[in-house]
């Protein structure tokens, strides 16, 4: 199935949430320049669960950072509705991140001086239409560890707090960069379940980077990156729940 067909097929459902055209990111200049992204065209739809695969250095993180409004591309456009993130000001991108994007990182990046509840509340206090921090934590099965500090939580629990923090603002987009990279299989499954549940119950567009091809079976769509380009993508006939993944 080629990319053009994929796009056509889904466009019929609803317009894309994020639309990249000729997205290019070059690091450095001259002979040392690295084309981390090289003309990526990509449409991402509401409610989709997308897995990004590709060898190390292929540009996955770079793409995710672009989608999250952390960085501006060297060339090309990236539309979120009518907002062109490629041309947006720092303040506009901050607002975009604040209201529309949830991030989950490989190393959790929780604020160690705040409890689980406070880490989540940090976001709910500034977001436009947040959910209750406790509700967000219940969604990731952490309703009982509200007042624990990060140092009192396991890695998997910390990552689930990070997910709760990311989704408490009811983001349109949830971006996860190797969310299970630092976790063992069992804990990883719990984290993936939380992500999957958020995607299913809140209808959040979810993009997950992973090195683990098995996880790709969870996705609606799997995109392979290679040297900063989309090498190929496929659509899974059906999503496999995390618990049933074959490791």
């Amino acid at each position, binding site marked *: 199935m080629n990319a053009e067909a994929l796009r056509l097929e889904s466009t019929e459902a609803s317009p894309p949430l994020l639309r990249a055209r000729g997205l290019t990111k070059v690091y450095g200049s001259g002979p040392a320049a690295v084309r981390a992204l090289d003309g990526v065209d990509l449409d991402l739809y509401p409610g989709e669960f997308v897995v990004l695969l590709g060898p190390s250095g292929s540009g996955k993180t770079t793409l995710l950072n672009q989608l999250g409004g952390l*960085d501006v591309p060297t060339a090309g456009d990236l539309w979120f509705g009518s907002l062109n993130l490629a041309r947006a000001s720092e303040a506009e991108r901050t607002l975009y991140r604040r*209201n529309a994007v949830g991030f989950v990182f490989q190393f959790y990046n929780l*604020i160690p001086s705040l409890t689980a509840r406070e880490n989540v509340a940090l976001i709910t206090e500034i977001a436009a239409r947040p959910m209750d921090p406790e509700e967000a934590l219940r969604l990731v099965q952490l309703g009982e560890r509200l007042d624990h500090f990060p140092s009192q939580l396991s890695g998997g629990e910390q990552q689930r707090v990070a997910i709760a923090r990311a989704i408490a603002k009811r983001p349109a987009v949830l971006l996860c960069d190797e969310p299970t990279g630092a976790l063992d299989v069992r804990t990883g499954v719990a984290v993936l379940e939380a992500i999957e549940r958020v995607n299913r119950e809140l209808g959040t567009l979810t993009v997950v980077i992973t090195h683990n091809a098995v996880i790709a079976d969870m996705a609606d769509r799997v995109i392979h990156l290679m040297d900063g380009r989309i090498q190929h993508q496929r659509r899974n006939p059906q999503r496999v729940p995390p618990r049933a993944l074959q490791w």
Partner: protein
Amino acid sequence: MSLLDLKLWRDLQRMKGQTLAVALVMGCGLAMLIMTRSLIHSLETTRQTYYRTHRFADVFVQLKRAPRSLVPRLAAIPGVAAVQPGIAVQVTVDLPGLDEPASGLVRSVPEDRPMELNRLFIRRGRELQPGRRGELLVSEAFAEANRLQPGDPLTLLLNGRRQEFRIAGVVLSPEIIFEARPGVSLPDNRTYGTFWMWESEIAAAYDLEGAFNHLTLMLAPGASAQAVCAELDRLLQAHGGRGAHARADHPSHVRVSDEIFILRTISIGFPTLFLAVAAFMTHAVLMRLLTLQREQIAILKAFGFTDAQIVVHYLKFGLVMATLAAVLGTGAGIALGHRLVALYHLFFRFPELHFRLDLAAVAVALGVGALAAAAGVATAVRKAARVPPAEAMRPEPPARYRPAWMERVGWGAYLSPAARMALRNLERHPAQAFFTVAGLALATALLIVPNCFRDSVDLLLGFQWDVVQRQDLNVGLVEPNSPAALSGLRRLPGVLAVEPIRAAPARLRFGPRSRQLAIVAVPAETLHSRVINKHWRQLSLPPSGLIVSAKLAEVLGARPGDLLEVEFLEGRRPVCHVPLVAVSEDLTGLGAHMELQALNRLLGEGDRVTGASFTLDPAQRAAFLRALKDIPQVSWVSIKDSLRANFRQTTAASINLIQRMYLAFAVVVAFGVVYNNARISLAERARELATLRVIGFTETEVAAVLLIELGILTLVAMPLGLLAGSGFATAIVEAINTETVRLPAVLTLRNYSFAIATVATAAFLSALIVLQRIRRLDLIAALRAPE
């Protein structure tokens, strides 16, 4: 370059600002140390060489008149190596350009033999020519103040007769490195000078042929000055000897020694403070650097680097800072030292006063700098060596936190998440918070000291010239006279009030201690030269008995009620026992006061005065001074405004220069400490702050997290700093307690406000820099694995 050194180099480049801040603070301390130590060294060695090459005498005595035939007997006193009899007389000088009378001391140059002691240094022109009359040499300070050149004419009143002279040369003498009218602590070089002429010429004018009235002696090594003085006094008693004294009572010598003493006090107090702050900062920087590099250290150890290698690696950080500081400090110390030395040349007259680098001070400075750095590194490095290699294999465990006490007591609801992060962070790292507060407090404290110095000098001047001396000027007569002599002066134009003064040279003795000075007597209820107690109230002079200044009482070890022996050194030289009735406040020199009648009774010469103080109608002041020049009995005049102006140009200028240098250093340090602290906090929290930015916090919101914390620390530190600064300032300023000058520590609101404003400005600017850095924070890096 080894790979560890490459890492050192890269790390240092990343920490440019902090490295420089530490080096600057340390450099300031070193510069100060080198500057003052070198100045002391320059003054001491120059004076020593000058004394030696120009044979500065050890013992001095003024007398009425003694025959030359007495000299061999004086030279035979055991312990005397050389004697130089001569003539010294007070004269009035008529300077056409000057509206007021000037005066000075004329000294003799022997014609029949070389000058044995206190040899002159010819700055310009030439020596006196043998056989030529009507020539004289002029002291450099006086010549410069009045723009006199060799070849210029100069009119002196010798024994009441006007005589024209021509200036042969401008000279220096080891006796007047500091030149001022006797008994005056502040110089006015325009109206007072020293002159030298052929002995026969003065002898003729004063009927002193074959006689001498001044004697200087050099002692054999190891001889006792006290014994020689006693013997001299005995032998010269019949010849009107005014009491022999050693160098310790020589005005110029004492003045230079006091200045060196003051410099020494400053050279210890200030740099010690600065270097303490620097050691502190180095410690803080390295401690926190090591915390940031915990994992790196663990990895290095996992790779097989030994503890020793790692310790050396981090010690190098300290050494780089210390080296940078040494370079900056030595450079600045030498440059500023040159300026200071040039300034000292204004009021200390040496043939040559060159800046001489005190190599010992540089060595000490380097040692202290390295030690400060090493002390800073020591604890930090020990901690580093203890990091187990296994740490590297795990991702960084989140630091342990708990609710702050404000939340534990139930106030948590009022706190924003940013405030909560700040408070918990402070509680989580109490040692770090303590050190930060201590550093900021020290920075505040440093600012207090130089300004306290300035305010104290201001107070001193106000005390001296507004509280004690209410007159406009003092006039001295050629010799003690009857009060009728003043009636002529009273009728001069513009005189509003006149008060008589009787000054009598005397030696005050209590037990084994004694001092030689002039007892000043004025009417009991005087309006001019007032005697002030320590509450700054005027003391009325009792009908009998002495009031001495607090410092003199301290020097003599006497208290009110004690009986002092007063040996008058002129006239019939009576020796009396006079009760000490009260102690007065006096911030310069040593003072002893009596009621006029009481003193005259003791002297037994009837009603006598030696001078008077005047209040004048300002409009007629010039006319008064011009008229004064024509009155032969007048020997000298000292004008308050001239002294004050002169003081501002010399002593005050030097104090101000030093004060401004120190203040500049203190400001640099305040900025260094505050900035450094902000940078370190930023570095430590970079990941956390970047995460906040990523999840949607604005730059300002993120900055608030950091700035609340820094703000709390700064607010806590400032009052502590003021307190500590007051303590340091009092200790350093009040250590300046010499017979020449005593400084009371004055702490003003202005001083405190300046310190607060400076630290607040530093904090504000640092906050701006932090904000700038937050703007440039690498968001993407924060998402990667922790370094």
